[in-house]
């Protein structure tokens, strides 16, 4: 019996550790086993990823989690509806500052354990001192306006009493150019995905001060993004791809594969970097402040804690931040459009034949679980949490208007 021909699927990605699921799905044959010939193309900007998916050059892509939402809210240049039927992991970002700024932070008592509240307090003092001396504003970079990096950086700053619009300047720099921008002094710090924080530490030009996982534990970062049109035209292929990516996520999460995964990602077709720069994120060991590598719980999660489930509460949190920072005006209709950008129904359907502990709900109260919690789920038990924000604030997706109103008062 001959097997049916493989179905080609074209995917775009940016050189980041959290492209791991797509890369492993191809290189470890999870895609092939699902009947898919997965081809991967490295891109140079998120704008290219968005545009090439929009016009059909790519079928799917490694995408910033807020991008499909922004597209559906009309904030994108092209009017093409996007969906996110799967997340590509949780966490994976960090905040890095120049050595000069790190010295100033240390002098203000910033610890080397990544504690966002204490590092933020030190940063607030540095900014205050700069303001008294009438020095120029600090410049922090993120990778895109509609990105987890942008929102978590702003969330952290604001919760520490720093006004991200008045007390400093936030600009956009592509991930691979972050280290150079820091070294040249054009920026003083940035929030980016790995390996571009560790790269600055290796290079000697920066110090990592805190992590996404410390600001919001087990928080969303990248999704599999595609057009609704492609999903509707290719339901079986999409389901097969989701299964392949799910299997890839289990392989990536298995610690015995850490070295092999680092070697794969470091390859010239993918990140094209030394393995030593790629490995720390995969091992959840980050060199903070004093450059001592230390274990960071849940720094980057590929599979556990339902890491690939597209929670609609995640979509709504991103939406709440778009409203908070004036990117879009709130309306119930827009909130609905944001929520429906994430498609847990497609995820459930695709994985129904696998032995996956599936969340019963499509939304959860973010920050409600202060410790590891076993929840009953379809097929066995689901372990979630802790998933809190560092300032202890809770996000209830059913009370989004109150949440936004409370944020505006701060």
């Amino acid at each position: 019996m001959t097997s049916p021909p493989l179905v080609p699927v074209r995917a775009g990605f940016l050189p980041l550790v959290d492209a791991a699921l797509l890369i492993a799905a191809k290189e470890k044959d999870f895609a092939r086993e699902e009947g898919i010939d997965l081809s991967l193309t490295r891109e140079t900007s998120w704008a290219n990823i968005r545009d090439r998916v929009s016009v059909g050059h790519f079928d799917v892509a490694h995408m910033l989690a807020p991008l499909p939402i922004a597209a559906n809210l009309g904030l994108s240049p092209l009017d093409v509806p996007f969906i996110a039927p799967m997340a590509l992991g949780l966490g994976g970002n960090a905040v890095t500052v120049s050595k000069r700024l790190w010295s100033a932070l240390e002098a203000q008592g910033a610890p080397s354990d990544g504690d966002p509240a204490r590092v933020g307090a030190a940063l607030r003092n540095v900014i205050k001192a700069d303001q008294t001396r009438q020095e120029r504003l600090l410049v922090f970079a993120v990778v895109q306006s509609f990105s987890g990096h942008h929102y978590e950086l702003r969330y952290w700053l604001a919760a520490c009493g720093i006004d991200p619009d008045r007390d400093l300047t936030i600009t956009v720099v592509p991930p691979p150019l972050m280290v150079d921008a820091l070294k040249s002094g054009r920026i003083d710090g940035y929030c980016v995905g790995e390996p571009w924080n560790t790269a600055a530490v290796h290079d000697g030009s920066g110090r990592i001060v805190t992590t996404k996982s410390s600001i919001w534990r087990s928080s969303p970062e990248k999704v599999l993004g595609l057009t609704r049109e492609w999903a509707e035209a290719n339901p079986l292929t999409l389901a097969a791809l989701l299964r392949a990516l799910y299997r890839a996520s289990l392989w990536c999460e298995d610690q015995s594969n850490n070295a092999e995964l680092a070697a794969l990602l470091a390859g010239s077709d993918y990140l094209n970097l030394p393995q030593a720069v790629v490995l720390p994120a995969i091992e959840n060991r980050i060199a903070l402040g004093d450059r001592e590598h230390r274990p960071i719980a849940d720094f980057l999660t590929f599979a556990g804690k339902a890491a690939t489930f597209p929670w609609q509460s995640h979509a709504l949190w991103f939406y709440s931040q778009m409203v908070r920072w004036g990117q879009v005006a709130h309306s119930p209709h827009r909130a609905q459009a944001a929520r429906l950008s994430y498609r847990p129904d497609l995820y459930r359907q695709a994985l129904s034949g696998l032995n996956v502990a599936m969340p019963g709900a499509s939304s959860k109260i973010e920050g409600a679980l202060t410790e590891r919690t076993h929840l009953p789920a379809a097929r066995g038990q689901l372990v979630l949490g802790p998933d809190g924000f560092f300032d202890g604030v809770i996000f209830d997706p059913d009370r989004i208007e109150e949440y936004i109103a409370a944020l505006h008062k701060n």
Partner: protein
Amino acid sequence: MSGSELSILIIDENRVRAAVIEEGLREAGHSLISIISEMAGLVRRIEEAAPDVIVIDLENPNRDMLEDLFRVSRAVRKPVAMFVDKSDTAMIAEAIAAGVSAYVVDGLRKERVKAILDLAIGRFNAFERIRAELETARQALSDRKAIDRAKGILMKMRHVGEDEAYTLLRQTAMRQNMRIAKVAESIIATSDLFGKGDK
């Protein structure tokens, strides 16, 4: 056209390609054209150029930064849309396939901008064709050189004539399912290794 003439900015690190587009635009009667090939100080230079239309190549990693700039900066005349008409998907797909994107200040007449973009797409495609042709020609030249050198080595070592040396090369290539130039290169490498090269 004076008074309402459009100011066009080309952002492209490939200076030759930028010049090719500029030439095309000038031939089409545009004279307010500026080019940025150095990404340092990009924001300030965009502000100075105050463009109505920006043409940028897709290889440029700074597109996310540019879009952010158009979204928030007061220095750049806003609002800016990518392309003129979101619904013109054929044109957008064509531009992206050619490797070019455009940003346009709002309120411009569609036909005026479409002509500029059509021209840029045409020039990008032509440039890509010329680049591919050049690459083929360069490859052919270096193949020819390698084959000539390998023939010389074979003639000396096997004491055969030129035609026979070429036949030997061709037969080996067919047997090993390789390009003749590849066989020639390995003969040269081996010969260099044994110090019997014909240099």
